[in-house]
């Protein structure tokens, strides 16, 4: 072995002037300003989203100009005035731009917010009255994956309204029925986020911290013959090197039937990026250097990248267990499709191909672990959507009880499904910190996020629809191959969702779905917003539109004809209660003046419609049985009911009665759950929102909630919260009634007073009553929980996927223009009406819709992870993987229809994922309407549009 060459760092002393203060610092020559601000000055308001100049999250002002601090060397910043998000507030207060962001709903996950605000501040300094176009130009280097941008533009446009006293906007569509529910209040975490004070996982620096890095497989498929880590271990500063032999021989994953991942590869690597080894060292740089010193010998195996090829005889086998690489087969048949098609007047069959898109939250995944109580308790910080499933999975792999683990979920900078599974970072930090007795931190680079994958499955779909000449659906059949990548992850569930969400919008008397999830040598796919459903929904809606045109029926009419109503049992045996789908259709048609436009626009201009809906919380937990270490229990047979409550809350009133602390593990990932749950809590208690503080981050303190997936938090978490609040109220009213010698039923809460019903009677301040309660009874605490109702869904295999206490519905109309010479699409306007039940916070609802529209529209026309023939990703960064910028985003009009879900808290249900579903087809239809050609493969790029147009020209 050759002697290790120890690289020499070139250090220098510099003085940086940051936010008016001078800091003498020793930096490496090659340190970026971003790393120095964060790692040395701990000014973590400045975020690292891509580290390559493509996202803008790191934007700071250098002598007043906005700059990507990841692309400037600190050494070159001497003598310059550096301003970060921490330095723009005035006299301890917020900058008017920040206040505008708070009040206009311009913040969701908050990860882009610091950079966005810095760009906005720079803009208004030199142009105090920017137009919308100027704002979109100036902020186009700041990517946001959550908001859809419109509210950010509004905030910047209105910043002057916050120069002295705030003049917040009028909120369209607020309800007057309740005091707190139905009101567009600012997010409870808005100020933390807009100031950069919110600490995301990567912003945490524990003392004595070590840093880990992963060695990824460079080949798509192969056997690991030998790993030599000696040179890496010898590198000064390296504390530990782990390879497959050092990690537990316990598999993990998501779908319990198919745990097929190891923390580090045991024998085989199955995709480029597969985890082979990990190094833990005094800093990231040392760990990275050590990675280069690990010598791995592979025996390369033939690889397969196409799902159809992968199922053929003789294709390379990726997992011994999956014959022909088929991971899951679904065959659902309801009614008789042959009979249905025979009854039809028009039967069309078309093939559609989806795209492999990536969630691309701006915050990269990060985990930090350490062990407390003399090594007894693992404390794991993770940027996750599902702290409880991480908890469960880490307990499984480490084989310790859940009670010995404390999961902390700091604010999460967006997830969209990519943070809905336990990551190698969670497991590696836990293992390494145990071995090392020191805290360990790991953060993915943007490229590693793509290598880890879990993006949307690319689906190869064949759809067949039968219609009567009046336009009634007689049968629907689909056959879908899902390209799953190298591991199962969520894939089994994805394959079921691809079928189960089709019959939830229209009456489909006969329905058959055959699904095949296939393994290929690419990073595993997972759950992404709308899980499994958006691509089939796109295919179905497009085909319906084609056939409506053929029959001469208006696309809106054909939908109204087939749309389901409230209290329907769908053909695949899902129970739909509230349903105002038809209202969303008529509203969206009215708002867009559909009838005047469809078929009447000049060439190059198009209008299109798509519909969709989604579950409001999965009816079943992802794992079976009780909350328990998986090795302790015999596999639980499937029972048709929730075993344990999926959401749980504690409401605890402060001893002086002036504050309420709401505890629930619900994962705030930007979608606004903490705000919505706080509103529900305040409403149920009869106190103002200001009195409620929510704590969601710590599994030691907060009772279990399954997390942010399947759009479950508002309904399930909300029900648990309302119940806990009512529990408190019952105790409180009980004690007051005792004091007053009346019955509790004679009391109610009004304006933070406990009063006798009917007015005129006695009254006591809420806080005073709570104090008195404490004096006599000790802590005023209420608990509540929510279990999905028993008996949801059918009895067939796979019936559990798609069951939900409630379903959302939505209709979107897209208006676009297409350059008929180049194929370029401009999405001009989007109109969406959604049935989300009671909108607990209308502004938050619209924010979710707007974000979904922009994400979905981008997904339809520009997004795709591209591989070369060796399984390498060609665009693993935010400059080449294209997500919409502020200049691409359309104008959006989002509306809600009147609806009340009896199973939901105050009638509420979901909006987060459902809003994605109509988008793809609406865009595709609008493009077809503008060009006269249907592109049935996503993304609908200019190239594909032009090719399709040429093909019809002959």
């Amino acid at each position, binding site marked *: 072995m050759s002697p290790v060459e120890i*690289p*020499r*760092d*070139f250090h*220098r002393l510099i003085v940086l002037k940051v936010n008016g203060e001078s800091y003498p610092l020793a930096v*490496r*020559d*090659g*340190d*970026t300003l971003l790393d120095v601000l964060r790692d040395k000055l701990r000014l973590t308001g400045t975020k690292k989203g891509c*580290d*390559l*100049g*493509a996202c*803008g999250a790191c*934007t700071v002002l250098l002598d007043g*100009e*906005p*700059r*990507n601090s990841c*692309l*400037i*060397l600190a*050494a*070159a910043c001497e003598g310059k005035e550096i301003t970060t998000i921490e330095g723009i507030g005035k006299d301890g207060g917020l900058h008017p731009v920040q206040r505008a962001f708070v009040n206009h709903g311009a913040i969701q996950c908050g990860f882009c917010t610091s950079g966005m605000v810095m*760009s906005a501040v720079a803009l208004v300094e030199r142009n105090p009255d920017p137009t919308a176009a100027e704002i979109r*130009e*100036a*902020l*186009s*280097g*700041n990517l946001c994956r959550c908001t859809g941008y419109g509210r950010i533009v509004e905030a910047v446009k209105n910043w002057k309204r916050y120069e002295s006293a705030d003049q917040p906007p009028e909120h369209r569509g607020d309800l007057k029925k309740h005091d707190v529910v139905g009101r567009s209040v600012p997010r409870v975490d808005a100020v933390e986020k807009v100031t950069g004070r919110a600490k995301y996982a990567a912003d945490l620096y524990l003392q004595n911290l070590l840093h880990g890095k992963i060695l990824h497989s460079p080949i798509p498929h192969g056997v690991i013959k030998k790993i030599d880590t000696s040179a890496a271990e010898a590198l000064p500063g390296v504390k530990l090197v782990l390879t497959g032999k050092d990690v537990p021989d316990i598999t993990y994953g998501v779908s319990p039937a198919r745990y097929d991942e190891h923390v580090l590869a045991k024998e085989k690597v199955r995709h480029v990026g597969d985890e082979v080894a990990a190094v833990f060292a005094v800093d990231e*740089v040392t760990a*990275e*250097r050590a990675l280069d010193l690990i010598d791995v010998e592979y025996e390369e195996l033939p690889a397969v990248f196409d799902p159809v090829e992968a199922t053929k005889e003789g294709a390379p086998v990726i997992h011994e267990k999956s014959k022909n690489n088929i991971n899951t087969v679904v065959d659902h048949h309801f009614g008789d499709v042959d009979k249905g098609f025979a009854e039809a007047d028009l039967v069309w069959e078309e093939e559609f191909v989806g795209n492999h898109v990536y969630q691309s939250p701006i915050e990269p995944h990060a985990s930090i672990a350490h062990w407390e109580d003399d090594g007894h308790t693992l404390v794991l910080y993770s940027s996750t959507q599902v702290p409880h499933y991480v908890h469960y999975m880490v307990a499984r792999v480490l084989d310790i009880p859940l009670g010995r683990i404390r999961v902390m979920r700091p604010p999460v900078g967006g997830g969209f499904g990519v943070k809905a599974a336990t990551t190698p970072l969670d497991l590696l930090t836990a293992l390494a910190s145990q071995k090392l007795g020191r805290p360990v931190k790991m953060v993915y680079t943007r490229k590693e996020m793509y290598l880890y994958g879990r993006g949307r499955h690319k689906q190869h779909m064949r759809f067949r629809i039968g219609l009567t000449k009046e336009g009634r659906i007689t049968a629907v059949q689909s056959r879908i191959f899902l390209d799953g990548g190298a591991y199962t992850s969520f894939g089994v569930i994805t394959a079921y969702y691809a079928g189960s969400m089709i019959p939830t919008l229209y009456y489909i008397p006969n329905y058959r779905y055959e699904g095949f999830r296939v393994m290929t040598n690419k990073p595993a796919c997972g759950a992404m917003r709308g899980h499994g459903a958006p691509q089939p929904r796109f295919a179905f809606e497009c085909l319906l539109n084609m056939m409506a045109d053929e029959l001469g029926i208006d696309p809106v009419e054909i939908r109204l004809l087939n749309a389901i109503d409230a209290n329907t049992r769908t053909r695949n045996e899902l129970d739909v209660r509230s349903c105002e789908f038809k209202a969303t259709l008529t509203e969206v048609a009215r708002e867009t003046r559909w009838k005047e436009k469809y078929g009447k626009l000049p060439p190059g201009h198009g209008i299109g419609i798509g519909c969709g809906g989604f579950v409001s919380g999965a009816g079943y937990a992802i794992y079976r049985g009780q909350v328990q270490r998986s090795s302790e229990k015999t596999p639980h047979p499937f029972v048709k009911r929730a075993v344990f409550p999926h959401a749980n809350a504690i409401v605890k009133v402060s001893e002086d009665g002036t504050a309420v602390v709401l505890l629930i593990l619900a994962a705030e990932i930007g979608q606004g759950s903490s705000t919505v749950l706080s509103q529900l809590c305040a409403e149920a208690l009869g106190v103002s929102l200001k009195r409620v503080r929510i704590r969601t981050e710590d599994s030691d303190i907060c009772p279990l909630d399954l997390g942010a997936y399947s759009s479950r938090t508002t309904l399930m978490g909300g029900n648990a919260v309302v119940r806990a609040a009512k529990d408190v109220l019952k105790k409180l009213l009980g004690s007051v009634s005792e004091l007053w010698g009346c019955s509790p039923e004679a009391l109610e809460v009004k304006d933070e007073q406990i009063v006798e019903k009917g007015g005129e009677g006695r009254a006591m301040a809420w806080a005073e009553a709570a104090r008195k309660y404490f004096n006599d009874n000790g802590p005023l605490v209420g608990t509540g929980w929510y279990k999905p109702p028993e008996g949801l869904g059918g009895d067939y295999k796979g019936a559990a996927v798609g069951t939900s206490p409630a379903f959302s519905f939505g209709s979107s109309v897209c208006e676009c223009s297409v350059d008929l*010479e*180049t*194929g*370029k699409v401009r999405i001009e306007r989007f109109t969406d009406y959604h049935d989300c039940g009671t909108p607990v916070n209308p502004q938050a609802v619209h924010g979710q819709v707007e974000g979904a529209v922009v994400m979905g529209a981008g997904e339809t026309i*520009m997004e795709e992870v*591209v591989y070369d023939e060796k399984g390498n990703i*060609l*665009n693993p960064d935010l*400059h*080449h993987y*294209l997500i*919409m*910028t*502020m*200049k*691409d985003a359309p104008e959006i009009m989002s509306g809600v229809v009147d609806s009340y879900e009896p199973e939901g808290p105050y009638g509420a249900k979901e909006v987060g994922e459902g809003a994605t579903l109509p988008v793809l087809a609406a865009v595709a239809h609008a493009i077809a309407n503008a060009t006269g050609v249907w592109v049935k493969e996503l993304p609908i*790029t*200019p*190239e594909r549009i*032009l*090719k399709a147009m040429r093909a019809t020209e002959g």
Partner: protein
Amino acid sequence: MKLVDVRFHAPRGLEEALALLEGLKDARVMAGGTDLLVDIKQGLREVRDIVSLHRIAELKGIEDEGDRLRIGALVTVRELASNAAVAKHIPALADAARSMASEQIRSIATIGGNISSAVPSADLPPPLIAADAGVELESSRSARRMSLLEFFTGPRETVCLATELLRSVVIPLPPPNTGISYFRFTLREASALAVASVACRITLKSGVVDRATVVLGAVAPTPILANKASRSLLGKNPSAELFREAASHAKEEAKPISDIRGCVWHRKELVHVLTQRALAEALERALGKAEVAE
């Protein structure tokens, strides 16, 4: 080599910078760093020493020298986009500058870096070539100048030696009745590299095309002249039909590759469309520029 391993030099003057380049092996100059740092971070470039130009006053500023514009290598893209002389004489260069990247990148990215990177899709070279721009290179031993077209030798390859610096870009002021234009096609509206780009120049004399240049970007290893297209315009009365014909030549002359941004077929189609649009715009500008005659 990782970025943290580099040694950083910030010479205070041109002479010092050139001396450093002479003395160091594996050194790279850095202007804005928006290409260089990205390349180093992605492991695309081995660099031991970075010689930053940010302090060198000699490389800054745009000067109107009467018959030409001299643009220092360190002039940022944002300055180009907002400079009055550029807007007046070579609006196509301002168009190109405005269309590039994002606000943050534009405020630090330089013209020298954009040219020296020699990325085939770079936005500034096509309009500069259409405007007959030349570049001045300097080392501690010599200085030389050449047309920008000759500067490029391949993708990410130029004639510039490791010991040399691009000092300035020199653009002769276009004669009267001359219009220059730049059109690019991208897959999104901001922060996107060109899939194809076309810069055109037309000089009119008595209503006919006296001189024409069609430059294609992102469709060959370097920006290229579409000579046939240019020649086909000479001596003719400009018309949509003439431009279409020229565009067909340009389409033939383009030598694109297929990559994630576009396939050969689409790129050629784009050249066809963009050339027509760029010629129409150049014509409009040429007609509008009659009064600039001095």
